């Protein structure tokens, strides 16, 4: 697990601990954080977008109700992914249809299934590829000090300490540069995101 993944896990644990105490705001942040990935995974099982969104909603509601069972041994997303796959399979059974792929829900962390999650619907793959290209282009356009910091963080997965050592600057400066880089990239990709949402292929906006 890279430093970046470890940091994300720690961030999730902070939120999960609050959720376990009944903080719905923390759960809302988890939903907003993972909704893009969860819907992409469910879309692999459920081709209809409206149905995929219903299954995603059900997935998050189940996660909320079962949050006490999450002990933090694995990443929160791994646990959420398992619920999403299980919920999607149940939906398919309820629709009296065979799953498009034979997936063992109890083995959702298997390499085969993780590979399955990497192969989403063609449309999602296209969107993701285009979005990733737009992000990388936005990073390339950043000033050198911001670009270096965000590359080392997001693409290399280094910790703040490692980035500070690599760039020869204080950790506080690294933190500030990464924050400013994220803001700049977000501003750069907004037009692209708006374009995605306004295209005719976007069957439903939620």
């Amino acid at each position, binding site marked *: 697990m890279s430093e970046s993944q*470890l*940091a994300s*896990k*720690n*961030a999730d644990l*902070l939120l999960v601990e*609050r*959720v*376990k*105490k*009944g*903080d*719905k*705001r923390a759960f*809302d*942040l988890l*939903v*907003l*954080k*993972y*909704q*893009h*990935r969860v*819907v*992409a*995974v469910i*879309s692999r099982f459920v081709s209809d977008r409206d149905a995929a969104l219903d299954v*995603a*909603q059900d997935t*998050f*509601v189940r996660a*909320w*109700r079962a*949050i*006490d069972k999450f002990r933090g041994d694995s990443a929160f997303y791994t646990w959420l992914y398992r619920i999403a796959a299980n919920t999607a399979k149940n939906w398919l059974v309820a629709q009296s249809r065979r799953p498009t792929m034979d997936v063992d829900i109890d083995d959702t962390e298997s390499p085969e299934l993780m590979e399955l*999650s*990497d192969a*989403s619907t063609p449309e*999602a793959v296209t*969107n*993701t590829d285009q*979005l*990733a290209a737009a992000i*990388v282009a936005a990073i390339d356009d950043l000033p050198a000090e911001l670009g270096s910091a965000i590359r080392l963080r*997001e*693409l290399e997965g280094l910790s*703040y300490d490692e980035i500070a050592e690599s760039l020869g600057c204080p950790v506080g400066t690294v*933190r500030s540069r*990464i*924050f400013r880089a*994220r803001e700049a*990239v*977000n501003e750069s*990709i907004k037009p692209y*995101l708006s374009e*995605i*949402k306004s295209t005719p292929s*976007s069957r439903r*906006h*939620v």
Partner: protein
Amino acid sequence: MTNSNNSTSELMSKLIDGEISELELHRLLRAADESDEVRSHWSELNLQQSALTEPVDANLGLGLADRVRAEIGDEVVVSDAPTVVQKLHARWLKPAGQFAVAAAVAALVVVISPLTQTQSDEALIPGFQSVDEPLYSLNAELALPQLPTRQVSTQVSGAPLTLSSTDASSGQRIIQPNGVMLQSPEEQQRIQLLMSEYLRLHVERAGPNTASSVRTYLQAAPE
């Protein structure tokens, strides 16, 4: 973007990297709860990060999260926080326990009172089966002499009690039809003196401890 939004965005960046403090997280959660703009920005920052590593559905706004929020509504997490059932249990357990105790006491009163009352009433009605005068008169059958005193046995508060209804003029206790037991004037005076003496001793012993006991004495003491 205002300074406030800028500050909130910085907190988001820190949360993404797991470097946020509890206090900062609290501020961020409050800001997100109050502003859809903050929620939307948080979603975009995470989309930006996720899209670099795996497939995402970029065509999502706040709709799905809003639907989830609406569905979980007032649900309580089954965790440290009490569940709905636990809450109801806690809310109703104490009153229910009090009610159960009260009901048990009331039931005891309802069950015992008629029994006691019945025994008392039976002791007052003619033909009551007394110790010395059963309904089936063995004395008459055997031609034995009747005893002058009619004694009736019953129980009061679980203790056996034998009452006599012989003659009021003799100075002994008599039982009136309404069940009230009267004493002779001498006996009443003796009981009053005993009670006064008891109260005096009680106040003398309790007096040094509380002022209220003195008042009790003053109120209770006979003129």
